[in-house]
């Protein structure tokens, strides 16, 4: 992990971000470093003149979100040092409107999950007070190591509390934890052990595990609500970095700077320029592309001996590397992700791609004319949307529709008999022959024509993503069409997808939902249309889209009705009133 900012770099040297906010750390935390890390990402945003302006909305929804596993771990690593990564596996949230992260706004905490948090807290706290590394985080010394020390405990608890709760602790809360640290230190006759016990408790606090967004009246617009400064900082940081805010962002919240247009833009640009953006963009795309599937994916090794556990891990990594490289390093057009021949190859993937194995991850460009073009032809997409021992045109077509175009495909009817597809006589050799059965049967055809014509274009790749020209001796026909656009092979499919209007509107919709932590609704349509137009005006650059969303009014404003204004209900739109009365 490296950072764009001098203060963070120095903090890293000392092991934690906490050191950076302490008096013992280098004092200045000023501006981007000119000689920033080699991971320097998107170029500073250049304002492109716009023909559109953000439509008026009531703002987004206020949420109680549960920190995801990665948000929790990223925050710990940032605050306490990159070596602080406890084994903490949280149950996955329920995928909601295409995103796991939206499930986090509904999920509760089970007793089992509480145990996981507590175990992680014990591990983290033990590392913090460990004699060999305690100076990284505990930047004061107790007068007597064998006794309580109010001043030092108070300092650590204040600093840690602010970073992990994403706002300063109230004096009352701080005093309660300090009292616990002192009591425990006295009982255990050990300052550090006592402090450790208080830190354990802080780490399982609901203010750490839950993100409770708070709102306040927006002084600029009477009747309108907005996120309070710390909630806004947290929403922004979870969106761009998939972690809690850093010291500087919290300072901008504390001073109120974040509520000014200029101040907010400064923070957003700083965060977009940081190397921590990689982590945020990876999280967004990992979620959006459904890569949690990898956690349970396995292939029949008797059919696919090269599809090892390492290949599985690397396949996910390959696509995320391309996403980061293309969208951030090169500031590329989102649509070109589906046509680019540039990728990264690892030794395990080289076996499946049938390339000479590089010694380590290496950037690679498939030759012109190659059928490998765009992330649809990555092993990740091809293998996750296949069966354990064979490819599936239907699964691939369905994934393309649902993940990339935001078009839900209905599930098969309950009483369907699939045995025709089995073809025991073996006269149907290719996948196309077999799925044509679906298309002949009107009951099946309705849905299968949504998925199969584009899925079949990927049939040059088997169930693990290896290239093939024939199936059971018969040549594979990979021609097809996507919503009226015909193509002759997978390169054509990539291009058709690239040009499909739903490709960009889908990523806009998902990114906005992800940013605000809530599914979009019909009421958001004008807003999403605006974001999409801006996205286009700016050449479909992902950092620009993220910037537009982060700086939009809807991102910061909260749709919350003002308390009991008389006659307020009379102004409900007529459709809602009708719905309300017809219930």
């Amino acid at each position, binding site marked *: 992990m490296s950072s764009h900012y001098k203060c963070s770099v120095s903090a890293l040297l000392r092991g934690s971000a906490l050191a950076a906010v302490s008096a013992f750390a280098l004092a200045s935390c000023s501006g981007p470093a000119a000689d920033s890390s080699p991971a320097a990402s998107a170029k500073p945003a250049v304002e492109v003149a716009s023909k559109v302006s953000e439509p008026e909305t009531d703002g987004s929804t206020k949420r109680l979100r549960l920190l995801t596993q990665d948000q929790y771990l990223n925050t710990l690593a940032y605050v306490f040092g990159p070596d602080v990564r406890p084994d903490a596996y949280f149950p996955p949230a329920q995928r909601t409107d295409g995103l796991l992260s939206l499930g986090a706004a509904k999920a*509760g905490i*089970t007793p089992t999950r*509480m*145990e996981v948090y507590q175990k992680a807290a014990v591990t983290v706290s033990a590392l913090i007070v460990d004699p060999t590394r305690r100076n990284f985080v505990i930047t004061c010394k107790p007068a007597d190591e064998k006794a309580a020390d109010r001043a030092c405990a108070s300092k650590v608890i204040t600093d840690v509390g602010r970073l992990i709760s994403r706002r300063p602790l109230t004096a009352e809360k701080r005093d*309660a934890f300090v009292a616990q640290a002192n009591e*425990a230190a006295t009982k255990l006759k050990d300052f550090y052990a006592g402090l450790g016990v208080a830190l354990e408790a802080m780490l399982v606090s609901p203010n750490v595990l839950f993100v409770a967004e708070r709102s306040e009246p927006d002084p600029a617009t009477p009747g309108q609500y907005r996120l309070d400064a710390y909630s806004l900082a947290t929403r922004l940081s979870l969106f761009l970095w998939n972690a809690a805010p850093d010291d500087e962002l919290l300072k901008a919240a504390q001073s109120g700077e974040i509520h000014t247009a200029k101040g907010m833009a400064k923070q957003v640009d700083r965060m977009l320029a940081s190397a921590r953006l990689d982590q945020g963009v990876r999280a967004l795309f990992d979620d959006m592309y459904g890569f949690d599937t990898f956690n349970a994916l396995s292939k*029949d090794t008797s059919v696919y001996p090269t599809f090892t556990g390492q290949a599985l891990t690397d396949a996910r990594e390959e696509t995320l590397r391309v996403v980061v490289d293309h969208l951030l390093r090169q500031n590329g057009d989102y649509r070109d992700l589906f046509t680019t021949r540039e990728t990264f190859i690892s030794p395990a993937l080289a076996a499946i791609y049938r390339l000479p194995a590089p010694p380590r991850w290496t950037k690679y460009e498939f030759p012109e004319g190659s059928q490998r073009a765009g992330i649809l032809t990555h092993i990740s997409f091809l293998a996750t949307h296949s069966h354990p021992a064979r490819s599936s045109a239907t699964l691939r077509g369905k994934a393309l529709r649902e993940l990339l175009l935001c078009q839900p495909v209905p599930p098969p009817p*309950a009483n369907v008999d699939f*045995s025709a597809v089995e073809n025991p006589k073996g006269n149907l050799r290719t996948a196309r022959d077999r799925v044509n059965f679906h298309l002949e049967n009107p009951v099946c055809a309705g849905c299968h024509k949504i998925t199969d014509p584009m899925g079949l274009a990927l049939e040059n790749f088997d169930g693990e993503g290896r290239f093939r020209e024939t199936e059971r001796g018969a040549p594979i026909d990979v021609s097809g069409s996507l919503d009226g656009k015909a193509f002759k092979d997978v390169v054509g499919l990539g291009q058709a997808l690239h040009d499909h209007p739903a490709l960009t509107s889908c990523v806009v919709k998902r990114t906005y939902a992800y940013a605000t932590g809530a599914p979009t609704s019909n009421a958001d349509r004008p807003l999403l249309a605006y974001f999409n137009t801006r996205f286009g005006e700016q050449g479909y650059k992902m950092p620009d889209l993220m910037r537009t969303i982060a700086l939009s009014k809807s991102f910061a404003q909260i749709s919350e009705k003002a308390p009991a204004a008389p006659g307020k209900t009379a102004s409900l739109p007529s459709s809602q009133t009708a719905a309300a009365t017809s219930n």
Partner: protein
Amino acid sequence: MTEFNRRRVLRGMLNGGAVTVGLPLLNTFLNGNGNAMADGTSMPVRFGTWFWGLGMSKSIFVPKQTGANYELPEEIESLRPIQKHMNLLTNLTAYRDGAFFCHYTGWVVFRTGSSPQVNDQAPGESVDVTIANQIGRSTRFKSLTAAATGDIRTVVSYENANTPNSSEVSPLNLYTRLFGADFQNPNAPTFTPSPKVMVRKSALSSVVDEIKDLEKVVGAEDKARLDQYFTGLRHLEQQFDHQLTKPEPRPACVPAAAPKEAQTGNEAQLVRQRHKLMSELLAMAAACDQTRVFNLSWSNASSNTTKPGYDKPHHTCTHEEGVDEKLGYQVNASWFARRSFEAWAEYVQAFANIKEGDGTLLDNCFIMANTDVAYARVHSLEGMPAFTAGKAGGKIKTGLHVDCKDGQGTSLGFTAMKIMGLDTESWGTKSNQTSKTISEILA
């Protein structure tokens, strides 16, 4: 905590008033018959569940006879060693009530009493949670859930509609959670409460106050989530209490050494390796009274278990494989189903292998096993099978095949609730609502 600190704490305890208690011989805590504690309280009755995906092949699964001593048909031949310990229930129905999700509706009706109206979203808490809230409060773990599938997304238990209980998928992790550093062997000769745990418990009280602030800023729906968090906090407190209390001796509690990390993968044999370790660990967890409620799943509802050299995983196979004209069933689908029933036998046997009092641990358990469909090929929810195992401390008869004659699938969960002492008149909603127990198996 480092070794250095641990030693320091132990040294500190000499002044801190911690006590070391010598424990008397184990058996003096049991009465003469060994089926109850010396003070007359009987052995706890535990509740367990087991899940397998994709039903069965009716023609070679459903026995021709009902009652005792029925002949085991081909597909469930492997149940012979446990036939006397279990009951086979056939012909149960799960009602759709206006919504149907192929591999979800059926098992969710059995587990929650209601037909889900949204895919992958439970209508409410599952039966194991209802029972655990009744009988699981006094043990270290309210309940334990594990899955042999290797997939953390395997869900068979719901705390409530939006909160699935995640499954432990690594036998080693399950072992560590149960018998790792925090385990207190109930049969240890001495007992020393840890001063660190005492202060840890005390520190949690500061956290409880924080909920109050949050409650002020969230809506009604989210208040329920904070309540749940609060329950979780209480659970932690309770675990600390356990660590600070001298445990009752449990002669049957003899944990094995830690298993090696099991291989991942969906191949039936690998799933079986994990399943065996998990069955034994859950049985020992019950024997050591670490929990009184446990869930294990052999496969997912859309089971992705694979057979070496065969190109379709279990779920795909049930849909795509033709029915063998001569045999009258899907040969490979039955191969998968047979592996499932072997695993069920293994699970039940793990509990039967542990002696408790003058019987076995299984005698003091009630385990229910269910699936998602009767005939996977067409997702039928009529004619569904289920199993029970164990005598529930004498409340249940075993060794029977009961034809439930299209009865409600929810009668199984309702029976479990009644046996476990829940004071409830009925269970389930709409067509799945029932107030009928499966009387044939009640002792």
